[in-house]
């Protein structure tokens, strides 16, 4: 299950970061923030190379000794990052994919909330629920 889920704007500031345990919030912030390096690198490849990834899902960004960091960038350059405890190896790639899909959909709905101003930190119960379901979800 995911230990940290983050939504980051195209300007690279966080809209939403949730992590368990809440204690090492800072650590996760760093993990996510640094992962942006890889994301940007991968993105910059798009269009340049013939074999660029047109898929929104970027796959494994980089593994630290205790985490696996996965990335997904929507067409609107909104970045989603999911951190997974490397201890549970049971994760299939497509499971991660589906998680991202879920995340993206949830985000889209937030965007469609007329009372949400794009660019503001996300404060939405529905969204929270989706996230927590992803963090709880047993694999």
């Amino acid at each position, binding site marked *: 299950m995911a230990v940290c889920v983050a939504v980051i704007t195209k300007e690279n500031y966080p809209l939403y970061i949730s992590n368990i345990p809440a204690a090492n919030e800072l650590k996760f912030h760093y993990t996510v923030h640094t992962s942006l390096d890889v994301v940007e690198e991968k993105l910059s490849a798009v269009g340049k190379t013939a074999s660029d990834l047109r898929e929104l899902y970027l796959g494994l960004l980089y593994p630290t000794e205790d985490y696996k960091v996965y990335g997904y960038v929507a067409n609107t350059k909104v970045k989603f990052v999911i951190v997974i405890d490397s201890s549970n190896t049971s994760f299939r790639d497509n499971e991660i994919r589906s998680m991202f899909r879920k995340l993206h959909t949830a985000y889209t*709905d*937030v965007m*469609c*909330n*007329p*009372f949400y101003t794009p660019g503001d930190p996300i404060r*939405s119960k529905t969204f929270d629920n989706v996230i927590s379901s992803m963090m709880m979800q047993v694999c």
Partner: protein
Amino acid sequence: MLRTESTKINLMRPLGQPALACAGYRWRENYYSHQRRGGYNIGVRIIEDFLARTNVGRCHDFRETADVISKNAFKLYLGVTPTVTNWSPAGDEFSLQLDSNPLAEFVELPDNHTGLSYSSLLCGVLRGALEMVQMAVDVRIVQDTLQGDLQTELRLRFLRRIEESMPAGEE
């Protein structure tokens, strides 16, 4: 791909409006009344559109109207079929219950707008539309998912029939 979205899209449409409502209308009441007025204007026109699409004739009684509203109108425009319930014994009042309110599908009221009755647009529409078919009704929201209720419930009360009158200056 977009086909699948198409239902969603029409729901995106109202998106701009509350935004505007919030901008222009600080006070809940005003928002409310505005939405109703706006709704009314829409209703006045949409009824014609409705009749043109489904040439349902004039209804015999209020029950039939209720039926048409839920089975045809809501289905046609919002893709949902609310259940008609809670008839008053006199048969002049009933409720439309929507398990999911398409207008408010993505809406979450911010803290400073709790209690804003977002969907009052619908009331206006219904009032306007029915008035065009000679039915003066009063519509109000009694339950609203946005307010934390399990479902959205519109209450319609039949006031009177508007009789067609001979234009003035006729002998």
